[in-house]
């Protein structure tokens, strides 16, 4: 499912990421563990806790292109 439609407070594993340098450099890659910390109304971003380590806000237009799945 897309990251944008993922549920708040759940933990996921990233399945695929679009080719965006900054995302990659931040460590959002295939296999990265992400927790949905917060979602925002009106087309707002998704706030991720990456690998239990730091917070990154990702805008809607990218979040819809990232797919995530349940943690194995």
């Amino acid at each position, binding site marked *: 499912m897309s990251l944008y439609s993922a549920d708040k407070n759940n933990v996921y594993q990233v399945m695929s990421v679009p080719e*965006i340098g900054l995302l*990659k450099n931040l*460590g959002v*890659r295939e296999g990265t563990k992400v927790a949905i910390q917060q979602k925002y109304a009106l087309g707002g971003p998704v*706030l991720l806790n990456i690998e239990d380590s*730091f917070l990154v806000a990702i*805008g809607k237009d*990218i*979040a819809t292109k990232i797919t995530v799945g349940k943690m194995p």
Partner: protein
Amino acid sequence: MKKKILLMGNPNVGKSIFFTELTGVHAVSSNFAGTTVDFLEGRLKIGGEEYVLIDVPGTYSLNPSSEAEAVASRLMEDGAVAVICVLDATNLERNLHLAMELMQYDVPIIFALNMTDVAERQGITVDTARLSQELNAPVIKTVAVKKEGFDTLLERLAEVLQISDCGGKCEKCHSCKDEEKWLSAKEITGRVTKKNTSSPSFLDRLGLKMIQPFPGLPIAAVVLAALVGVVVFGGRMLRMPLIMLTDGLIIPFLRTLFEGIFAFFATEGGSLSYRYLFYDGGFQTGFRVFYDGAFRSVSYDVYSAVSGGFADILLNVLIGEYGIFVISFQWIIALILPYVFSFYIGITFLEDSGYLPRVSVLFDNLMRKLGVQGGSLIHVFLALGCAVPAILGSRTATTRKEKMMIATVICFAVPCISQIGALVALMGAFSWWMSPLMLLFAIFVFIVTALIAGKIIKGKTDPLILEIPNLLMPNPKTYFRKLWIRMKHFLKDAELPMLGAVFLAALLAGTGVLQMIASNPQVQLVVSGWLGMPGDAVIALILGIVRREMSVAPLLTLYPSLTHLQAFVAGVVSLLYLPCLSVFGILAKEFRIRFALAIFAGTIVSAIFVGGIVNQIGGLFL
């Protein structure tokens, strides 16, 4: 050949604080990614040898994704004698990924494990000895804001500098792929860190609350109201002592100084030739008209000076009741500085605490509808201080269009604090509701400008990708140093152009050029007919080219004769009107000259056009 030592690391790990402490050259630091967008150099002496320490813009990787990050990889390619890599202990994995990239180069490297205090607060402990083994390089624990670990860092750096290369150690991951580096970073992090699941501290919990729509939005409203309160009331409270300072100390001192100089030259008779050059009557009459008109008050001294000699006139022009020095110091120190100071008290606190990225995330949904991402709000906040660093800061933008959008919105709709001070003073002289009304109008202009600029400027903007830093209590020492540097810069950057602008005003009036412009039928049609302003107000439009607050300040001297509508129209024109000369310098440097010229023309035309519309519509109701 300079021996360069590079200070590298992820954004917002504290490199600039290391730089300031090690070199004594002040680098601005804040608590969000992208405060340093260009490199800074400072000298550093180690073991009797001199080195150049370079504060490199923070980067997540050597594969750059913005202009600022490209600077980092270019500097690394250029080569150095050593690298100090600053690691954020709360974020080791991602930081180690950059470390792996740096270790590919044939340069000795030393690691500073920073923010260990914040890590401890979060229950994270890092085994530095183990990390040092894993990386095959020295690792020193530091808390940069408290200057902890610097002595050890310098000692070990001296040892590292003895090695000319990394002795083959750096080959370790030379050919490995990015994926392997991440894996290795993850494995090392796992081996060297221990994480206690202790209950989060108050600041960590507050940091999370601030970023939730509830209570984040109410908190944002309170924080912004507090900022406005600090600026308006702090500014008003500071004005009294500062008026006493200028009128009681600075101006009398300058007066005595100038009178002394003049008395000296008068006895020498040195100004005789100047007397012939200028003493032709026109100059003095011009000044009289200028004072009479623009400042709405005729100095008795000036009248009396007409019958006196040139020296008396010049003395009056310089230091008389409405002299160049008197007016410029009164405007800068007693009118503008109180607001500038109180604004920086507030905004510096917000910058260093890590609040700004949080509020940017909360408003990303609205900003996105305007065609820019929420992260741009950080630049807007900075522009409320001064547009120049804000436009430079937009180098962190990932696309050209976004950078241009930020610059455009700032130039049209975001007044700098100097201008805000003058606007608040003018509006406040009329009614309490004038300033809030002006604020609503500015927000309206902001929205319209963003929507129009989004249509005109070609290209695309990237959606938000923003790291949220830990919420911190600003370190008092760093905070006050930054505040002090900012005030010093303000006084240095503002007083001279202000002096120049006031001199220009006197000159234009003195030579009759101002009267010529003001009496030009076309100018009268625009200023008096379309904008409904008194003819003298044209001086504000001329001076406003130099500095932003100058498009308002001259009107303060006209204020008893202005109506509410005229004051508001003056505010509207000033808001949209040209940013200052320094901003043009930056625009021409950061963009093509065509863009700078477009802003130049666009701001003038829209200021006159919109100001007139407001006047015409307001006239219908009043």
